[in-house]
């Protein structure tokens, strides 16, 4: 018997449930390809838990000892089954796939919207009666594709909700600030701010200089202020007043798409997750750790090579993004000035130029901070 589940990659949990049901009805999975075409062979009905794992290399040895059996294996994934329903496999790979899928779909949507905008712009000067039918059909087709992709994004998002919440919470994908970090209620915080037992400091753009942000927190620590939490946007620092200077390590770490292993290892080692970005592709996390007077300062990176690798990744991802935005903004200023100088929509073009000049300054500032951080780490490595 053959079954076709083309959306298995965006709905792995739902697909596994379907394979579970077929196993109970006496169909054992024997093969599956990347497009979701599955082959089943008749077997004795068995209640089994199935798991699709997006990992190369096949079923690990330890999982085999826990009763997992590999039903089929391909280059990028494998399907395993276990008679014990309490046994689990990691969903970390799904979280990664979901993030990639969302970014890919979002990029294609932007492309289609751009196409539609371009076509509308080109057609707006034409008389409706003389618009060639093939152009109109192309525009309609692009609009339909963009709408279909928006629907697909919603479907991907809904399917992502089926992933066990524990896995999502573990990886920090559920909230930017873990709920347990809010030790005080909103009223208590308000009162503490009034009493001077809590202070909040806004520092836009601090994120692009992780080393200087850590120095800033340490300066506050020396005056007895303990970092408490961020606001939801990650821009405002909240500190709580302690009786004596505080010994606290503050780390901004950039890992891109980190697996659960990353979060678990850090938490096991006593690090407290303070913030994790919503964007998983540009994923960064902020960690703190308190330590005693007789203890050595804990380091998130114990060797300079790892720190340099992080700074390099930071420079490539964020540096290139801001460089691109900077170039686009500079071009936009040029275009606005050119159009304005021709006497068309002068007021609007001045307004547009001012907006883009502000953006150029902002992006340039962020870019210089990112490059500065990279240079400092590179110099540290040379010493």
């Amino acid at each position, binding site marked *: 018997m053959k079954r076709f589940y083309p959306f298995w990659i965006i709905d792995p949990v739902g697909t596994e449930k379907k394979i579970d049901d077929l196993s109970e009805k006496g169909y054992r999975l024997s093969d599956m390809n990347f497009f979701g075409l599955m082959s089943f062979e008749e077997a004795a009905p068995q209640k089994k838990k199935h798991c699709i794992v997006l990992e190369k290399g096949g079923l690990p040895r330890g999982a085999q000892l826990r009763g997992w059996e590999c039903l089929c294996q391909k280059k990028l994934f494998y399907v395993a089954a276990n008679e014990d329903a309490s046994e689990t496999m990691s969903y970390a790979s799904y979280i990664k796939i979901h993030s990639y899928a969302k970014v890919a779909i979002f990029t294609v949507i932007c492309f289609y919207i751009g196409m539609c905008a371009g076509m509308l712009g080109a057609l707006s000067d034409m008389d409706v009666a003389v618009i060639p039918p093939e152009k109109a059909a192309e525009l309609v087709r692009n609009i339909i594709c963009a709408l279909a992709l928006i629907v697909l994004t919603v479907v991907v998002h809904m399917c992502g909700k089926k992933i066990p919440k524990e896995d999502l919470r573990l990886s920090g994908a559920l909230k930017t600030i873990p709920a347990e970090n809010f030790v005080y209620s909103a009223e208590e915080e308000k009162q503490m701010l009034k009493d001077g037992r809590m202070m909040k400091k806004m520092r836009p753009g601090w994120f692009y200089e992780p080393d200087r942000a850590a120095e800033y927190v340490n300066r506050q620590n020396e005056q007895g202020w303990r970092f408490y939490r961020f606001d939801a946007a990650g821009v405002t620092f909240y500190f709580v007043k302690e009786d004596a200077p505080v010994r606290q390590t503050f780390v901004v770490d950039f890992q891109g798409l980190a*697996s659960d292993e990353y979060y678990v290892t850090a938490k*096991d*080692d006593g690090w407290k997750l303070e913030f994790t970005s919503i964007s998983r592709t540009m994923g960064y996390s902020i960690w703190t750790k308190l330590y005693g007077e007789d203890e050595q300062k804990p380091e998130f990176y114990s060797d300079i090579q790892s720190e340099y*690798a992080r700074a390099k990744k930071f420079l490539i991802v964020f540096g290139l993004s801001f460089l691109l935005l900077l170039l686009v903004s500079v071009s936009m200023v040029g275009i606005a000035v050119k159009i304005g100088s021709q006497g068309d929509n002068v007021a609007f073009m001045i307004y547009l130029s001012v907006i883009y000049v502000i953006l150029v300054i902002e992006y340039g500032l962020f870019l210089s901070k990112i490059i500065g951080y990279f240079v400092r780490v590179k110099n540290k490595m040379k010493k």
Partner: protein
Amino acid sequence: MTETALYILLSLGEPRHGYGISKYVAELTDDRIKLGSGTIYGTLTKMQKDGLIDIYDNTDKRTVYERTDIGSEILDREVHRIESVYDNIRHVRTGASS
């Protein structure tokens, strides 16, 4: 090979997860080497890509790693290299003192 990579390979004589490796290395070196969480995660990811280690088990909590045959071979070579460096130093020092 970096000291971090060497100790990670050495500790994976039996399957261990990230924090388990960190604890083992700290014990082995009398707390001289405390591997940071970021360092461990980055090094494990790279070593897995290079085929030196592999996933031993993958549960919803932790990824447990083990050394591959290639990893064992590389470790043997590195140990041999360190032994020969040690022998050379001893030889020079003994020669200098005699």
